[in-house]
């Protein structure tokens, strides 16, 4: 049974930022939604409220960074790159400013629907020169991503998890290094964010059927631990990627690029949103509906190997590692 940590970001950010006077916490009217309301109340000198005006916030942050402050911007992932994309390019990315974009509710982790679901953020951010992209997969990574982000010479976009977050890992976020969660000879599974927890649910049933699954968790999407991926992919019967994002331009795409460039000739299945928008509903419902869950992973592995693995949803349910989650309501706005 995994440990569930309540609001790991709130505590981690306060500890991190309050010890570093050059850090500023910027917010655009989603302060408590991004778990920095306590920080605002206890450290008002390091907090800047810029209101519901993201274009100005991003350019303003560029100016702060020019003077040696290190602004951490807090809002939902979508609001950091859709409306203020031009500001992101011209006020931050081109000039390689040390601005940290802390994006909450990535992908379908919000019931807010199209307006709130950042499903193409990684794709967009990957296309921006100078940008670093990090994604948290558990409470430990949420707690330890701040120092990693702050160490980067340039802009950083982070997919942050909030609320009740499982603790899957016992070691801190390590920049640009894939985490190996299991080793095996048959299929390579590459996952990121909330999809890693989901993939872990399939681990036991797959092992029980004698399948050797090599499971890698990705927390740095740009740059990317290319050598680690190549080592793990070589000689496998297939590769499956699973991401909380559209399959175009994110983890699945970058793995495809590397496999092709290396000429590994290994089959790839990309799981994630299949070039579609989602809609507003709970995370478990959406993960099932759009094929981002353990069941979809098992099916893809079966297809790659050309065999019916005979793993039913009930078996996956039985090993669910989020029993503590079950009491949790769909995340509110």
């Amino acid at each position, binding site marked *: 049974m995994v440990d569930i940590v309540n609001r790991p970001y709130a505590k981690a950010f306060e500890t991190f930022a309050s010890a570093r006077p050059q850090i500023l916490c910027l917010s655009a009217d989603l302060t408590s939604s991004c778990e920095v309301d306590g920080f605002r109340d206890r450290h008002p000198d390091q907090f*800047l*409220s*810029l*209101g519901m*005006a993201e*274009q*100005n916030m*991003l*350019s*303003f*942050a*560029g*100016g*702060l*960074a*020019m*003077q*040696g*402050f290190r602004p951490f911007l807090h809002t939902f992932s979508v609001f950091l790159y859709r409306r203020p994309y*031009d*500001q992101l*390019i*011209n*006020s931050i990315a*081109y*000039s*390689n400013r040390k601005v940290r974009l802390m994006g909450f509710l990535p992908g379908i982790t919000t019931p807010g629907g199209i307006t709130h679901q950042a499903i193409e953020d990684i794709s967009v951010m990957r296309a921006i*020169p*100078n940008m670093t992209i990090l994604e948290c997969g558990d409470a430990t990574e949420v707690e330890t991503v701040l120092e990693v982000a702050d160490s*980067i*010479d*340039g802009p950083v976009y982070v997919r942050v998890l909030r609320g009740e977050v499982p603790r899957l890992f016992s070691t801190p976020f390590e920049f640009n290094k894939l985490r190996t969660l299991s080793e095996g000879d048959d299929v390579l599974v590459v996952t990121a964010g909330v999809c890693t927890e989901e993939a872990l649910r399939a681990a036991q049933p797959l092992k029980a059927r004698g399948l050797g699954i090599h499971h890698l968790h990705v927390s740095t999407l740009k740059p990317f631990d290319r050598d680690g991926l190549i080592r793990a992919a070589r000689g496998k019967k297939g590769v499956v990627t699973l991401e909380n994002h559209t399959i175009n331009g994110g983890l699945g795409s970058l793995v495809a690029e590397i496999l092709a460039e290396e000429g590994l000739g290994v089959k790839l299945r990309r799981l994630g949103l299949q070039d579609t928008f989602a809609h507003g509903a709970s995370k478990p419902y959406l993960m099932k509906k759009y094929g981002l869950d353990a069941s979809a992973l098992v099916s893809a592995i079966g297809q790659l190997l050309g065999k019916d693995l005979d793993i039913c949803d009930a078996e996956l349910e039985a090993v669910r590692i989020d029993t503590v989650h079950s009491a949790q309501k769909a995340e509110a706005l």
Partner: protein
Amino acid sequence: MNLSNQQTTEDVAAGIRKRVFLHTMRNNGGYLSQACSAAESLAFLYNEALTLGEPTLPKVPLPFAGVPSATNPDAFTGAGYHGPFAPEFDRLIISPAHYALVIYSALIQVGRMDEHALDHFNVDGCSVEMIGAEHSPGMEVTTGSLAQGLSMAAGIAWARKRKGEPGKVWVYMSDGEFQEGQTWECLAAMAYHGIDNIRVIVDVNRQQCDGAMPSVLDLGDLAARVASFGVTCRSIDGHDLNAMRAAADSAEPDKPLIILANTSPYQGMEFLKKRFPRLHYVRFKSADERREMQTAIAAELGVDEAEIARA
């Protein structure tokens, strides 16, 4: 301070117009009207208002040194022509990057850049680009996508105020930028946070790429709209230097100062009135047209036409 007191501000303004005119004629086109509207404002800034140190970049502009990145230590900004960054010195953020030719001419006129620096203008591989970016002389940020300069300057100003630096942050911007929502977001933020070490001069020439502003998207009573955001707003004749001096001196505590410099897009070159409202970028349709303009404006500015040929 560098040469500033050796010329009157009127002389600097005249020099800016003349340099932009010469360059436009020699190169068959240019952002000529912007020199008409901006000359007094920029002359006032560089010759009187700004407290700047000696330039830190060579007088002859450097070639482009590559885009900024974690792996390019050679990247530089054109702020070096405004002198070193120090708590006591002012900063000037140029927002309308297409005024570049006018800015470069101003830097040359006040001796911060080499007399022949415009030879590098719009030449492949040079930093003296047609639409300035942060590596271009006088530029510190990249503002070719309009209306971001004010927000960046506001961030700089907030940070400098927090650090207790006496230097001011000046912004030069254009009225067209008030069509962008970001400008109003920034006014609200500056007023709310009491950012009072920022001084903004707006070139209200009521001209934009498509033509005269009333035919594109009129701003109505801009002064009233700006003032209603809780900032200090002074609306002046942008060619009246005494009015500009008084406005620049009129900042109020806890408020940013916005000076609306109401200008003419053909001030000093009345011949351009014939082309109104097509003034954004002046080019010539025929040799006759070019000759006529050259003779007329040369006479207005007191330029010997033979000087144009001496490219």
